[in-house]
């Protein structure tokens, strides 16, 4: 029997399938696009084919993420705060703090001794310090996201970015390029700005090491480096950080199924 977690985020829809030993049997990451229900179905199918399984093999489905409400075939919905905490705890039982930076939200979550979320802080409405912010800047710099990360590691200095707002920061970046600042240093400045926003969230919950970082932005080595400096601790990064919310949801799906049996 398999248990599914579906994380419908603002940018990616991720599915994880686990078996009764909580081992990952298949997963998928696809863009959410305009139709989140369709994305959920497609992502699930992809994970199932990877696992060599079919719908009938699924015992329970938990949906999470921004679009959790639209997953009508899920048996229940849980917020991504609880799910990222659970997923991170599954991979790193010693973790005390989780930082999830996705497309539109960034979150700092404090875990108790049992690895459950007890407190959290989230960014406000605006895109400052999120994956979307970095995407907008990558576009302004005419680079891919993957390239963005690598470039900043090469920088020797940092050009500070003073605007937090994605719209204003974009024009700031454009004028910094025009002024002839090296691209790497501007990019490093952007990563530092994301790290500073994240630090203030982490402080609000009184973060403690070990800190796990999840969400798509954890694939950005430049942000990781900047954040490790700000938080003054090494980050634990899962092999595939983008599926940790879905993994947590799958773990919860398994637990719910156990409860129903007993």
């Amino acid at each position: 029997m398999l248990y599914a977690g579906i994380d419908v985020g603002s940018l990616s829809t991720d599915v994880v399938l686990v078996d009764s030993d909580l081992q990952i049997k298949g997963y998928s990451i696809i863009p959410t696009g305009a139709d989140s229900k369709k994305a959920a179905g497609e992502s699930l199918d992809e994970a199932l084919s990877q696992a060599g399984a079919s719908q009938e093999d699924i015992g329970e489905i938990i949906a999470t993420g921004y679009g959790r409400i639209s997953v009508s075939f899920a048996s229940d919905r849980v917020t991504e705060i609880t799910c990222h905490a659970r997923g991170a705890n599954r991979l790193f039982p010693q973790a005390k703090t989780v930082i999830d930076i996705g497309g539109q939200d960034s979150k700092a979550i404090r875990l108790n001794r049992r690895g459950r979320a007890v407190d959290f802080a989230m960014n406000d409405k605006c895109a400052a310090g999120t994956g979307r912010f970095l995407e907008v800047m990558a576009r302004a710099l005419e680079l891919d996201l993957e390239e963005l990360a690598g470039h900043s590691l090469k920088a020797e200095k940092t050009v500070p970015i003073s605007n937090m707002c994605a719209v204003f920061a974009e024009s700031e970046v454009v004028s910094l390029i025009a002024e002839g600042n090296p691209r790497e240093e501007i990019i490093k400045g952007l990563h530092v700005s994301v790290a500073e926003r994240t630090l203030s969230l982490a402080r609000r919950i009184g973060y403690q090491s070990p800190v796990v970082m999840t969400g798509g932005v954890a694939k950005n080595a430049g942000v990781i480096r900047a954040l490790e400096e700000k938080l003054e601790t090494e980050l634990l990064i899962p092999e595939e950080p983008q599926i940790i919310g879905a993994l947590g949801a799958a773990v919860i799906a398994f637990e719910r199924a156990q409860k129903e049996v007993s």
Partner: protein
Amino acid sequence: MSGGRIGFLCTYTPGELIEGAGFNPYRLLPPSEAVGSEDLLDSNLCPYVRQVAGALRSGYYPHFQGIVIARSCEASLHFYNILSRERDFNVFLLDLPRQRGPRAQKYFQAQLENLTKWLEELGGKLNEEELSSSLDDYGKTRELFQDTRIRAKGVDIFQLASEYNGRPRRDFNAALEGFLNEKCLEENALSILLTGAIPPQGLINILEGEEIILDTCLGLRGFLRGEMQGKNLFSRLSHAYLNRPPCPRFLDGEDRLNLFSRLLETQEIQGVIYHDLGFCDVSSYDFLIQKKFWEDQNVPLLKVKTELGRGETGQILTRVEAFLETLEEGGEE
């Protein structure tokens, strides 16, 4: 009763006098859809006042014979200033003291006397019979709400109050009584206190199905009164209003916390959701006072900041649901 409506903004406006003079008090609640008012009031002023101003101009509310603006904060004073320049509105500024001692009571008493004169100028008559029955009706509401053991879904209380807005207090009481008999919820379940500034409908909707105690002037606090003590009607009303559990605008944080201490004695409050209204200094100060209080009591607290907009619902939903989930997870242990 002549049936004409008197609009009011703040629950420190004594409905007793308005009904006693033969009018129907109608609370100016924020509209369900935000209405722009940037040309009237600057966008860094209280969103509640701004939305009411926009709604008033757009014809969202029924016709008013007059409007009472209590001077609860600077934003409401600006609102009064704008309205008093418009020919279409009869407005009265009810100056509300920030302190609650004997001198404040005397001052507020004079304000209430002026309010009555103004109501008479509008054609109202403070009729002995109607006044005494309206005093009874408001006293009855106080009794129904005085008992802080009330556990009621915030949504229901709020909806009930909105439904009966502009109707005689007696009708509201009857509905409230039925509601409290039927819908008071069981003890020992997860109960949440919703406090802070006037919450958006979206936040109330999210909490539907939870057991909520609504402190804020939309819920419990708006209906509580102190004792009617004094020599004449006005001094007694002044006493009753200034001695109810204070709203955050009173510079009296300690006394405000008494209501919470009393609630804690009779209720199992598992978590507190604080609504922080954007651009409202009073609610930001109040949050700091409450934060300390709930931390000392070991009760988890979530702050939700909004500008009463509708587009904010998605993020609020995740915050509130995650907060409820952390409560279920059992906290620090």
